[in-house]
């Protein structure tokens, strides 16, 4: 589940640049300066290192960390505001963070950094900030709520725990290495402390490169290639980026699901059944009706006995746009392992921090999730134990701050 498709990052970036004019309601004049100025800046991705050693800029139309490749390490920090009814507290936090993010992503020490020597450029660091549902309950903000930005109701198969759910403000910190992620997370936590407390922290890893360092679709802990059918190019633009309200043009919405995978049961399942559960081969990721990873699924193909080659409950069928009214999402996955000590000893668990980006949560994600909840062969091995939604504002200009247009229209 990743945005790291095999196309060079440079392509994605150009597509993103090209979209600025297409976004309705955007104050093009005020953003062209910083946005257009990026072309020759150090933030432009270097093609031979499309996944690792990248430099990302927060001063794009979109925040980084969404359509950019998934680096090795990602951590999500969800905060609850101490005074959720006072907008000024949130805007102070967003202003502080914007300065921090600008510096961190440039590889420079943040203002007041007590560990300035930790800063380093070219480590693919991105910080992506999101706003939880309660933010839009602040006085005057209800009318500026992005359309379709709703909470995900509990699904029949959900086994939700509070400790992995909810939050008012989110920071997603991603980079090539855990040390960078720890450093950047700590700076953001410190500057947030006056205004917010941590609700949960979760994260995971992703291997988006092959042995030669070339970008590839990564694998989840079931061993499946995950992210193959993600939209790219113009499709991605249409699936992910919202065009309004004005402050939100170039933003998107995010669903975070913590999905526990029963690896013991998966290990005990035959490879043939494992492949049938998805409808794709484990080695190449090719559909059971094709021979290459990127081949389209043939949902009508039958075997000699007249049964569908891709089973009726296969995950890739159930999630396929053709059976979901064309609805698509951009998935980004993080593999986690989590170990807790209990009185009976050490209890390991593993899973996927499943991130879904879409312009309209209610009209894209919800019908898809609801349909999968009704029928999906994966259910025997999976349980969703956490859930949260965030509105992800667009990028911000140098010296400006995240989501300012929401508070100062």
């Amino acid at each position, binding site marked *: 589940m990743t945005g790291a498709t095999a196309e060079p990052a440079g392509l994605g970036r150009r597509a993103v640049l090209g979209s600025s004019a297409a976004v309705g309601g955007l104050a093009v004049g005020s953003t062209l300066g910083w946005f257009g100025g990026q072309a020759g800046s150090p933030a432009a991705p270097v093609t031979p290192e499309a996944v690792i050693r990248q430099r990302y800029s927060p001063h794009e139309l979109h925040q980084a960390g969404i359509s950019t490749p998934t680096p090795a390490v990602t951590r999500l920090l969800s905060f609850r505001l101490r005074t959720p009814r006072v907008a000024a507290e949130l805007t102070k936090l967003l202003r*502080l963070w914007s300065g921090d993010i600008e510096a961190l992503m*440039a590889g*420079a020490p943040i203002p007041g950094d007590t560990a300035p020597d930790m800063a380093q450029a070219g480590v693919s660091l991105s910080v992506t900030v999101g706003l939880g549902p309660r933010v839009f309950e602040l006085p005057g903000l209800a009318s500026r709520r992005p359309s379709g930005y709703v909470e995900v109701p509990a699904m029949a198969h959900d086994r939700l725990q509070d400790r992995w759910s909810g939050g008012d403000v989110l920071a997603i910190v991603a980079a090539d290495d855990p040390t960078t992620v720890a450093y950047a997370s700590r700076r953001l936590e410190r500057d947030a402390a006056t205004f917010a407390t941590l609700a949960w922290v979760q994260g995971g890893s992703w291997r988006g490169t092959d042995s030669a360092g070339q970008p590839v679709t990564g694998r989840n802990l079931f061993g499946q290639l995950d992210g193959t059918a993600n939209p790219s190019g113009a499709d991605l633009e249409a699936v992910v980026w919202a065009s309004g309200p004005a402050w939100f043009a170039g933003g998107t919405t995010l669903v975070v699901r913590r999905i526990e995978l029963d690896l013991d049961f998966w290990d005990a399942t035959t490879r043939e059944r494992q492949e049938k559960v998805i409808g794709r081969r484990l080695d190449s990721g090719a559909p059971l009706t094709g021979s290459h990873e990127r081949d389209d699924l043939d949902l009508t193909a039958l075997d000699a006995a007249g049964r569908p080659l891709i089973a009726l409950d296969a995950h890739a069928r159930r999630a396929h746009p053709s059976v979901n009214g064309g609805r698509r999402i951009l998935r980004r996955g993080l593999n986690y392992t989590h170990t807790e000590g209990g009185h009976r000893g050490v209890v390991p668990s593993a899973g996927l921090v499943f991130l879904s980006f879409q312009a309209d949560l209610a009209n894209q994600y919800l019908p898809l999730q609801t349909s999968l909840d009704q029928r999906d062969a994966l259910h025997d091995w999976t349980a969703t134990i956490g859930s949260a939604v965030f509105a992800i504002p667009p990028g911000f200009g140098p*010296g400006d701050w995240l989501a300012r247009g929401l508070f100062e229209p």
Partner: protein
Amino acid sequence: MKKSLVTLFTLLALAGCTGGIAAPMTSAGSTPSASAASPIIAEAAWVRATTGATNASMTGAFMSLVNPGETEIRLVGASTSVAPMVQIHEMVSVDGAMVMQEATGGVAIPVGGHLHLKPGSYHVMLMMLKAPLAVGDQVPLTLRFSDGSQLEVNAPVKAFVEEEDHYHSASPSPSMSPSSTGS
């Protein structure tokens, strides 16, 4: 690191000009005004919060100043709307103890290099603060340089965690020692 920062911010400033934004950019949320004609670039500016401090009438402003030009320029003064009295301070050793005093001649920003205004070193001292400064507030600063230019910087107020309490323990005199005033 120094070199790459200069390059980066020079590039950013260039991008700003060609892209049609009025002002050159500084990093980290500090916002220069359109009228600032100074060649100096301010990075990572911040002001120490006074909430919870024993002496909330003064505090320090810190930043990194970059001189991308060909001639040495000195930071000679500063002003702000939040405090009527502002001095450029340096730390000097007096009888083996570090004390701060006004840097009456200003402080040089080396050609092609940085001047770090940081805790325990050079800093901009804001005195007789009109109101306490809380984390997340924004302090507008006008910096004055030896070439007659000025630079306006918006510095966020941040918590300060360092143990040593130089910036609250002294009184506003040109030469002061923390030991003489207590804290």
